[in-house]
């Protein structure tokens, strides 16, 4: 029962007054880079293990294989066979979270300080010497397929992939890191073994840490856990830009009481000077969507917008509404209006202030710190960029934001999930964004 307001600032991106001084970098003996931030306010440790590549490391046939392989590896290893592995997890109550996106896979460990060495050792052992026991392997397959079906069945989550069909057909990012039911159904133990052998190489990896363990001690723990990972890795091509050349819409019929819509459009790639202003502008758009679609017109419970932070990026707007034609049309109008007419400066300043609060809130979470440093290092080439955004956008004017949107926004790729027996398909045409 949440009013979705917290996301206001989530979409803004990283704002932080300056680069923190308590960050150190070092390299393990096999070349794995490590970035660590000392935060000793409590006993909680966070460690993120990034495997770089994402969609670029997959083919049509291997979509989901990296995720599947890592999940299989986490079922037990030579030194920690299934029962011992489970016993260890019981003892430590370690929390493992994983995410698999277009640019990298990330495993994050959250645990109590004293458990860090044994948990990382077990993790390292599972990556290099996974047990890959038949029953456990099939268990992962069943659970992965169930998860994929759930994702498909949830229109609120699946709408993003429908929009991909309109915005980026044929692009590298169309290869799904989570996989499909079809691909996951075909994977074999040999596929998994080969994938781990190919991808668990020091040149593909990055480790970030935030917590009370000091750098020297951390180095020793990581060396013991991951020092045996072989050198080497893969070189990935620059991801190609998106090439949408007309307003496009893909409609998926479902018997849903409310419709879901997402539009995606070009945004500056990582490293481009327009990216930060663009992202700030899309956060202002979020506030405007909330005001117009939710407050003024009561068309929706949930609407938001933003810009991604991958190597190649897009802007997006989202809405769920029983009146998708009107809601989408208004959404496009809000964006077009902002491109043409800068908003009041107070709104821009307010957006930035909320973003500052969010960033300060994030500073207390080790998970967030690990993600921010790792994501920036992989996607921008320097972890420091996670902390300098605020320095770079605090002086932006409303006119600057309109100008950057005008430079980048062109055609939109729309995805809509609606009950087309209720909503006329003829009315579901792509709405121009400017």
């Amino acid at each position: 029962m949440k009013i979705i307001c917290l996301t206001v600032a989530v979409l803004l991106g990283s704002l932080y007054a300056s680069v923190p001084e308590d960050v150190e970098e070092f390299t393990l003996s096999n070349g794995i880079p490590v970035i660590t931030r000392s935060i000793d306010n409590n006993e909680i440790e966070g460690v993120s293990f990034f495997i770089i590549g994402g969609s670029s490391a997959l083919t049509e046939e291997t979509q989901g294989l990296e995720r599947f392989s890592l999940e299989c590896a986490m079922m037990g290893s030579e030194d920690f066979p299934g029962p011992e592995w489970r016993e260890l997890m019981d003892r430590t109550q370690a929390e493992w979270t994983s995410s698999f996106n277009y640019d990298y896979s990330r495993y994050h460990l959250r645990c109590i300080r004293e458990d860090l060495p044994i948990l990382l050792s077990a993790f390292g052992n599972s990556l290099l010497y996974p047990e890959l026991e038949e029953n456990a392997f099939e268990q992962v397959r069943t659970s992965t397929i169930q998860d994929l079906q759930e994702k498909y069945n949830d229109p609120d989550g699946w709408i993003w992939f429908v929009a991909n069909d309109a915005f980026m057909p044929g692009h590298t990012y169309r290869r799904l890191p989570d996989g499909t039911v079809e691909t996951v159904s075909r994977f074999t133990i040999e596929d998994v073994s080969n994938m781990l052998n190919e991808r668990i190489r020091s040149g593909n990896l990055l480790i970030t840490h935030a917590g009370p363990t000091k750098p020297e001690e951390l180095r020793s723990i990581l060396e013991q856990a991951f020092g045996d990972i072989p050198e080497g890795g893969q070189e990935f091509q620059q991801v190609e830009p998106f090439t949408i050349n007309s307003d496009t819409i893909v409609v998926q019929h479902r018997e849903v009481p409310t419709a879901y819509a997402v539009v995606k459009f070009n945004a500056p790639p990582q490293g481009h000077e327009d990216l930060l202003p663009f992202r700030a502008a899309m956060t202002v758009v979020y506030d405007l969507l909330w005001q117009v679609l939710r407050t003024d017109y009561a068309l929706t419970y949930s609407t938001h917008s933003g810009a991604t932070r991958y190597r190649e990026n897009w802007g997006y707007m989202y809405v769920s509404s029983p009146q998708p034609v009107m809601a989408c049309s208004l959404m496009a109008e809000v964006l077009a209006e902002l491109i043409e007419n800068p908003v009041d400066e107070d709104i821009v300043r307010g957006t930035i202030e909320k973003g500052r609060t969010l960033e300060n809130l994030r500073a207390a979470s080790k998970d967030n710190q690990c993600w921010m440093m790792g994501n920036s290092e992989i996607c921008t080439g320097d972890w420091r960029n996670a902390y300098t955004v605020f320095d770079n956008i605090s002086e932006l004017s409303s006119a600057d934001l309109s100008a950057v949107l005008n430079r980048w926004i062109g055609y939109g790729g729309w995805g809509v999930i609606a009950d087309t027996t209720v909503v006329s398909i003829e009315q579901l045409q792509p709405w121009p964004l400017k």
Partner: protein
Amino acid sequence: MKALIFLFIPLVLAVSAADFETRLLGNGLTVIVSPDDTSPVVTICIAVKTGATCETPETNGLAHFYEHMFFKGNEALPDQTAYNLRMGELGIIRNGTTATEKVQYFITLGSENFQEGLEFMYDAITSPLFDMEEMEREREVIMNEHDRGLAHPFYNLTLAREKVIYADAPWRKSPIGVPEVIRAAAPPAMHAFQELYYTPDNSALIITGDVDYEEAFRLSEEQFRDWEYGGRSNYDSLPRLIRIERDTTVFVDSPSGAGYVSVVYEGPSISTDPGDSYPADIWGSYLSLMSREFYTDLVTNGPFINVYGSYFTQRFSPSITFAGMVPPDKAEEALDLLLEEIQQLQSPDYYDEEGILLAKEELFRHRILAEETSRDIAVESMPFWWVVAGSLDYYATYQDSLNAVEPEDISEFLETWIVNKPRAAFVLMPLDGEENR
């Protein structure tokens, strides 16, 4: 990297609740402060003892509607535009939640704006305008929220549970409410809710983050002392809701194809049987151990994708639930296995002493991890315990109480709440056009 030695991890970690102090203002408002200077932000939360459990069929959905109106205009900020502008000025991130037994509103902002943040919350809680035009618009927003829920794969299951387990008053478990009430809601109904529940003696003000005790208490008192005492809330005298009188099994259609099995028993209320809640928690934690029988029988060697058995701490609808995802074609088989396992776990021999220690350890570690940031404490921990347990004494003494639990207490808990007690079972699976059965 072979021959790794399995390190011994000491059991029973020392952990205490977050540091906090509590004071009671003259008007009955409980103020709770928990400082943490890790980051220059402060979170202010107002928890109110209300929610769906206070509703009737005629008011089902109003507690939630009220939540939507909370962050609208008030006497100080008369409309949404002024409201949004002020949030921007102060850098406020805000949210609100309506649960069955609790409603809460919370903001986070820079600690330099702490005093203004208190004022912002005071105005919102004491002088909402409930403008009719705003309500008209907001009811459409809420209907959209309601309709989004209809598409959830577990919607049918939730409805079935409400009807069977909470048959006396299913509306008391449904915060979103019913369309008829949402459509008819008007300012007088909001004011009636405000009169009854939105009073200082029925609420707690929780402040965490970059503040110090004295300043936080002083400013809270200055800001909130004029909030008028109510004394009208019936929350503490509401009747118990959960009631399972006989064994029941319900097969629920799953249009999305998802498979899910659950078995529910009545559990101890934290207000009437608080002593039973500690062995209940340890017992639930034991069942979550992946190295013990419950998990290995049902997941490692069984049809479940995941499974848990746990006690949900509540005042009015405390439940003991065993549940897990299953492949839909194995749902019926999974239910049989689960019921068999439930039979076995009623014996004291099912539990070993080391496992019980591990279960305690899990609860301690869970608390540490759940309270990583000051916002976690203000939003997740303290409001829940203050409302549900009636004060933070339960929260503060939780670890000691857990440590005092012996294996015999767990056996007693099982005897009291599970052995030979009626249960309600639910199987979510595609029924191929059949009605629920």
